[in-house]
Each structure stands twice: as C-alpha cells, then as structure tokens.
C-alpha cells in the first residue's frame, strides 16, 4: 500500500490520517466466526465510498469444519483502491486473524511489513497447540517482519455488551462485528449501512440486532481511543466511469443476466437445477424472481434438471440449467439430445476444482474440454466464458442470445472465483441491453412440387442455419422430433448415409456460423511482440500483470476470449501477428492445446491448479520471462 507523501493530517483524537492508494485486507477465522459476513459488510461500506474493489472469499467445503483447526479456516480478502483494479490482490497488507488457526493458515501469504491484527483472547496454550504452535508465535520471532496488534476482541466484545440483556454465547459471537467496527474505523469506512443491514437482518430478534450494533460501535470506539492504533488511513474514491454502481458477485450477476435475457426476449425463463456447489446460488437467486415469469425447478438429479429445461424450451421458454463440472458430466447425453433437436438451451457451468468431487469450494477452469468436446458423436455447441464477476451478467445475456437465435445449446462457463468474488458494477441502462426477441414458426415454410404448402421442421434459415422453433399449440405445424437422425428439411427419421453426413456437417456449420465479434487486442504501446491470451476468470490477473509489465517499460499485448466456440474469425490472424503467445490457465493447458491443434501456433502455456486465482505478480514474472526472450 503506497502512502502518498505529506498527506498526513491531524484529526480529533490525535490520530494521524494517512492517504493510501490501495489496500488488501484479509479477514480470517473459523468457518463459524462469520468471516464471510464481515468481509461482505466491509466490502459494501467500501463500495459506497466509491473505491474500486475486488474480493476473494475462500472457505472450506464443510459447513462447520472442526473449530480451531487449519482445514476449518474461512477467509475473505478484499482489495480496494483509489484507481481501477483488476484482482483481489496478491498479498494482504493487513490480516485479521480471529484465532491461531487463522494466523497459521494465512501468515505465509503476508509480505514483510504487513499488519497483523489478532484476537489475542483465542491464543491460549491449547488452541495454539492444536494447530502446532509449540511456542507462541508472538514469542518465537516468526512475526518479526510484521506489525502485530494483539487485540482482546472476544473479551472486549463481551464487556461492551454487559449492559445489554444478551446471553454470553451471543455476545461472544458478536466479536466479528467488533472487529469490523475496528477495521472500519482504521480505514475510515462509514458503518451506518452495516448498522442498517443488521437491523434489517435481525428484525425479528431485536436483542441480537442490538448486540451486534453495540459490538460494531465498541470496535470503532476502541480504535479511536486506544494507543495501539496511532494512525488511521484513507483511500480516496476511484475515478471510475460515471454512472450508477453496485457491488455484485458473479453468481448474482449471472442470475440477473438470465432474468434480463428473459425480459429482453419477452420469453418465460425456466431454470432446471440440482443443488451443487458453487452454482446453487444461481438457483437461489432465480427462485426469488418469479415476478419476471421465471420458473425454477429443483429437480431430482442433474439429468432431470437439464431434461426439464429442454422440455420447457420445446414448449417455447428460455430453458436453462445451472451446475458445476460433475453435473455437466451427467447432463452430457441430454445436451447431445438438444444438439439433435436444435432447441435453445443454456447450460451454466460454474467450474470448480475436479476431477470428481475434487475441491468443491475452490476455483479452476478445467471444464473447457468437457464444454467443447464432452459429448458423444459430433455434437458441437457454442461456448461462452465470463471474465469477471460483473461480466457474468453480460455473458449470460450473450449465451441466451446465441441459444435463442441459433436454437442451440450454449455452455456458459463461470468458475468458483467469479461466482463468489465481487466487484463494483456500473449498472447498464435497460435500453443498452440487446433485444433478444425471436419468433416462433406460425405457418407452413415449404411448398411441395404439387403446390401444397407444408411445414418442414428442419428447413433452415439460410443465414443462421437455425431451424424454425415451432412450439406445441401451433395449429397446422404438428410434427415429431427426436434423437434419431433426421432427414434434412422434413425432419423425418432417416438412416441414409449421405443425409447423415450432411446433417453432421450442417450442425457443425451452424455453430461456426454464429456471429461472434472479432477478438480485440489491447496494446497501448503498439509495438508488442508478445500476446498474453486468456479466457474466463484469468482476465483480472492477466490484465494486472500486463499493466505492471508496461509500467516497467515492457510492451505486451493482452486479449481475452469470451467466445470459445465458435472462436472469433480474426483469432488466427491475431495469433500469427505476435512472435510469442502466452496463455495462462487454471488447468493443464486446455486452451493452449486447442489453439495449437487449430492454428498450428507454438503457444507458451503457463498453468497452475491450486484452487485459487493466479496472482498478478506470478504472471508478471512469467510474462517478463517471455518478453525478454523474444
């Protein structure tokens, strides 16, 4: 965090105020300590101050992992700045550790000079021994590089709530709000919105609301009065494009995008879903928006979820199913059916670390292969990937647009990081959103040699190659569709070899014919010989690394693929125009492999699968290496 010189000022209470241009804070505690809520609230306070921000929640797969253990640690990292930023930050400047496990699990990520605020009440012999601290970390010198504040968060919270009629247990549980009050004071964040939030959340339990509000205020007051914190910080608002903003997570943005797609297409939305981490929030969110004509169907399994979505699409709705990798595997056969039926279908895959159950709460982008190829037979679909939490909104609209216009399954890739991470989002005007309206077939579309007007369910639009969407209830268009190969045009069952060859090629051509925009390349210096290419959630770290590199005098170009199938028409030319193309991926090189096979370019892949996003520092050194050697 860079301090600007000479910007210190005195303020009442004799505390100095220092200006910073950006800060990375990580809140860490037991999974039952309320760290996600604390982080969310701090984020909300920060957003309203007008900082740019980016968040990274990180939590265990268990709902309540054993208390005080390393696997039970839940954390929430927030990066906020007075300028636009792209990532949740590589290393925390400040770590708030609610117990020894939280300290132990996170201390290795801290750079020298970081601030550590610990809840000293929890650092008894036993809890320390539980995570392997034979000697107290405050005595063994292991924290020598950091500024350590030992704050008795629990006991001060309990004391602060003595006057109130709350059970000791509830008082202890409010310690996260004490910590929030303290950190809000330290970084000059207003707590009014959090107080209002708590009063709303606990409206039916006023005593709990009072306790939490009192804890926040006590934390704030503690900061103001204690000698321990001599300096207070400010981060000025960022100069972002004018507009109305809100903070949003990827899953919420994605759900809103699906609602918006229904509105823009003037179609009912039908979501079939089976609960699965980290996609369930899309089901939860859409369930709240029935007023838009959104039906949510919690199915008996992943297969039924996609099956019902196909059924709804057949009936004329925008059929959607949301899941994660294991669910995509189960849905594979039904997606192939939708390929044969040529019906609109959006399949949302919020990727998580696999294979199998893998690391269900950790991020990865290793489902690109299954999205592109994971079906039997030649079964091409369109694939769209979101690049940031707020981009999930626009990516969902784009996926729906393609599905409706081309009557095809579209796989929309998000991932665990985008799903739970958040950032400020400049709210679009409804008038800026694309019109997705398509029309159903309403009459005959073919004239037989004898002059008879008939309806052919597989007679295509010559431009889009899409077949007519003729929904049940339309008189005169009664027809049968199915998974058996169909005769071109009539849609009758056909076992003719030449027809099958034609249909396979036509289905492929139909996907290739989808109108996707050209790939845009960002190369501010105009002389870059290296291109950093990514897809999905690596957009932030790749962009941040490129900025750092350019700031150090190197040229590097950046481009990001939103459309993975079909790929932009200019992609081959773009790849060919650089000496080196480097592709970071959170998998073992799936995009690299596709591009090598398709364009015969010797791309440089860089991969990690640690369940966490890339850091920009890591990518900076990777890119630098490539740039220096061209």
């Amino acid at each position, binding site marked *: 965090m860079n301090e600007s010189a000479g910007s210190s000022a005195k303020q009442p209470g004799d505390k100095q105020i220092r200006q910073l241009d950006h800060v990375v804070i990580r809140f860490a505690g037991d999974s039952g300590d309320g760290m996600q809520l604390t982080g969310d609230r701090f984020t*909300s306070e920060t957003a*309203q101050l*007008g900082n740019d921000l980016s968040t990274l929640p990180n939590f265990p797969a268990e709902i309540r992992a054993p208390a005080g253990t390393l696997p039970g640690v839940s954390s929430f990292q927030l990066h906020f700045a007075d300028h636009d930023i792209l990532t949740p930050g590589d290393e925390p400047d400040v770590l708030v550790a609610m117990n020894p496990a939280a300290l132990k699990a996170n201390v290795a990520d801290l750079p020298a000079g970081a601030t550590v605020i610990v809840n000293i009440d929890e650092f008894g012999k036993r809890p320390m021994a539980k995570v392997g601290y034979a000697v107290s970390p405050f005595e063994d010198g292991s924290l020598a590089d950091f500024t350590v504040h030992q704050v008795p968060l629990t006991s001060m919270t309990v004391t602060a709530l003595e006057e109130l009629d709350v059970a000791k247990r509830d008082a202890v549980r409010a310690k996260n709000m004490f910590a929030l009050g303290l950190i809000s004071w330290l970084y000059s964040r207003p707590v009014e919105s959090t107080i209002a939030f708590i009063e709303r959340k606990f409206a039916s339990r006023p005593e709990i609301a009072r306790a939490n509000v009192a804890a926040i205020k006590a934390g704030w007051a503690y900061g103001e009065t204690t000698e321990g914190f001599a300096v207070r910080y400010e981060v000025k*608002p960022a100069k972002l*494009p*004018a*507009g*109305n*903003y*809100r*903070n949003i997570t990827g899953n919420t943005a994605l759900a*809103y995008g699906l*609602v*918006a797609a229904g*509105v823009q297409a003037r179609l009912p939305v*039908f979501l*079939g879903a089976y609960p699965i981490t980290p996609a369930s929030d899309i089901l939860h969110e859409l369930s709240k*928006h*029935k*007023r*838009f*004509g959104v*039906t949510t*169907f919690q*199915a*008996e*399994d992943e*297969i*039924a*979820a996609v*099956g*019902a*979505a*196909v*059924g*709804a*699409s*057949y*009936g*004329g*709705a925008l059929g959607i199913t949301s899941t994660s990798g294991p669910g995509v595997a189960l849905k594979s*056969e*039904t997606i192939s*059916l939708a390929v044969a*039926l040529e019906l609109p279908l959006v399949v949302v895959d919020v990727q998580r670390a696999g294979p199998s159950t893998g690391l269900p709460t950790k991020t990865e982008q290793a489902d690109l292969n299954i999205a592109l190829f994971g079906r039997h037979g030649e079964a091409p679909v369109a694939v769209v990937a979101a690049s940031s939490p707020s981009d999930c909104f626009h990516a969902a609209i784009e996926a729906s647009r393609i599905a409706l216009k081309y009557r095809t399954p579209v796989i929309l890739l998000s991932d665990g990081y985008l799903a739970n991470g958040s950032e400020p989002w400049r*709210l*679009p005007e*409804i008038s800026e959103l694309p019109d997705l309206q398509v029309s159903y077939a309403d009459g005959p579309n073919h004239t037989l040699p004898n002059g008879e007007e008939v309806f052919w369910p597989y007679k295509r639009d010559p431009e889009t190659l899409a077949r007519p969407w003729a929904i*049940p*209830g*339309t*008189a005169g268009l*009664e*027809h*049968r*569709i*199915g*998974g058996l190969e169909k005769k071109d045009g009539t849609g*009758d*069952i056909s076992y003719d070899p030449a027809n099958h060859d034609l249909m396979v090629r036509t289905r492929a051509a139909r996907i290739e014919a989808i109108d996707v925009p050209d790939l845009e390349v960002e190369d501010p210096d105009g002389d870059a010989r290296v291109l950093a290419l990514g897809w999905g959630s690596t957009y932030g770290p790749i962009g941040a690394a490129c900025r750092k590199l350019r700031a150090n005098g190197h040229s590097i170009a950046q481009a990001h693929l939103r459309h993975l199938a079909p790929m932009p028409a200019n992609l081959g030319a773009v790849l060919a125009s650089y000496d080196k193309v480097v592709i970071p991926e959170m998998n073992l090189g799936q995009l690299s492999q596709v591009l090598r096979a398709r364009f015969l370019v010797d791309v440089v892949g860089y991969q990690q699968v640690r369940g966490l996003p890339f850091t920009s520092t890591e990518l900076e050194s990777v890119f630098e290496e490539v740039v220096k050697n061209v």
Partner: protein
Amino acid sequence: MSEAITESGPRPGTAFDLVPKATAPQTAKEFKSDQEVRWCPGCGDYAILAAMQGFLPELGLKRENICFVSGIGCSSRFPYYLDTYGMHSIHGRAPAIATGLAVSRPDLSVWVVTGDGDALSIGGNHLIHALRRNVNLKILLFNNRIYGLTKGQYSPTSEVGKLTKSTPMGSVDWPFNPLSLALGAEASFVARTIDSDRKHLTSVLRAAAEHEGSAFVEIYQNCNIFNDGAFEVLKDPESRDEALIRLVHGEPITMGKEAEWSVVRTGWGLGVVESSTVDPADVVVHDETVADPSYAFSLSRLPGLDLRHTPIGVLRSVKRPTYDSIVRDQLTEASTGTESGAELEKLLHSGDTWTIL
C-alpha cells in the same frame, strides 16, 4: 367408468380445463401421422396405437395441444405415429422432459410413453419423482417384461429365472411390481390395462386423461418376438376369468364367470377367497378414491407370480393439488403487474448503490 367409454367430449373439472377444445368433430384418421409404423408384425403396440388413435378424437382436445413425449425402446416410437406434437427423447428421461413442458405449458395435454426398461430401469428416478410431484402428465408404461429393441435381455419386470441372452442360466433379479412402485412413489392415479382389450384400454385411457395430476397406467403389452405369450393367462378365454380381476368403482370385487371368487380383507391386506365361503357383505367394494394408499397397494399385491388374480382398471384415483398448478399460482402471486423493463431496472438497482459523476 363404463359410461366414460360411450361419452364423447371433454368433461369439465378435469386435467384439461386449460387445454383448448376442438371446434369440430375429429376422426381417428386425423391423428395418424404419415410415418410408416415399424413395429414387428403382431406386436401389442399396434393395438395400443389403434386404441389411442381411436380415443383421441373422443377426448375432443385440439390436436395441436396434445403432445407425446417418449424415451427409448420399442414403445417409445409411439409419438412418431400420431399426428400431434411429439418428442422421441433419450432413454429414461421422458418424465423429466415432459415435466418441463407440462409445467411451462398448462394449455397442453402431455403424455409420456415408456416401457419397462425405460421407466423402471434407466429412468426409475424420473418416474418416481414425477409421480410424487403430481405433475399433470399421463404416463403410459407398456410392460412387455423384456427388452425388445436391444433384442431380448431380461427387464426389471421379468420373472426370476428368465432365460435370455444375458441370463443363460436364468435371471437372478427380483422384479418390480410397477403398480406397487407407483403407489409407493405417492402416485395419485394408478391403473392397469391390457393391449388386447380395446374397450378396457380406452376406458382406462380416458380416466387417466381426465385425472388432474400424474396418471400412471401400466399396459400389459405382448412382445411376440422376444417374450410371446407373457400375459396369455390373462387373455386366453379358458383362463382369463380365473386370472383377471376387473375393478369397477363402487362394485364388489369378484372374479370368475359366475363371480365364484371374491376379494376380502385378510391379515394385513386383501386376499381372494371362494365366494361361497364368505358373507357377501364382507366382499370388498372397490373404491378408487380411498385416501390411504395401502388399499390400492394391497390390490396391487394380489397377483402371484403366475399372474393369477391380476387386477385391471383404476386402482387409485385421488385428488391432490398438481405440481404445475401450484408453480403457476406462485408465479401469479409473485407478479407485480409492472412492465418487465421497469421491473428489471428496479432489480438491478436493488441493494446498496452509489453514483459516480
């Protein structure tokens, strides 16, 4: 039910209140598609198709508002042969696909055509969940107790010890009783009929069509190629009266040419005894509306492995709110009447927002 056979046109207060009605009389021919029927000659499926083509005009719904969804198997070719809307989908998944269709389109009469392998093996999960939800679907399970399309392996309804290509020493699986399974899955309508008895078949189809919610109909269907005569005991004039129990709502349950056999309460359930040995007042009078499913379940358990005492007709038909109507009610309740663009604007701006000038 006997009235139902002769009566024509939709009756009010039934499953298709929301389905548009035909404005002119329809004929069986109108419901025949132009596709060549490709079942083996002599297959029981032909009789079921003919019964359906004969019955649909009687139902009096607009042809375009009827949709058949099937899975995979011989029976699942059914939709191709009816000039309604239809989808021949994938193995076992028809109830799931039909659920999405029925929930989003109350103006359709949605039928699922499936077989013993399709519905009870690969698609068992979807079948039981469609039934428990009581989605407005009519599920016709053509049970031939064999896999036909894959050329003769034993199925989940094949008798133990069945010799097939995959079980040269006899199958060792215990079979499902489809009606018992449907009842255990909370089905609100459960019936059985036979391919060879067109009159009975039609009456059951009508009762199923009119039922609000999921209707489950098992149709005994002869596969003359791989399991010929599986239901012969129920069809042969010599044996059928001794073997079949024809259930009629409101009438005592008896069997035999002269009603020599009667169904009475025994032990935990029902049993068949010689009529001469019981007080006629003790003979169970069939009531398909009994709320407790154990009654219908006891009926479903009457036949032995030799199929003697097989009940046909409607075992259970009870009223329960349908899944799709409740889903629609929630949509209506949630509706604000605001123009959707304005509502979307409100949604995007909900929560904490701020403005940058």
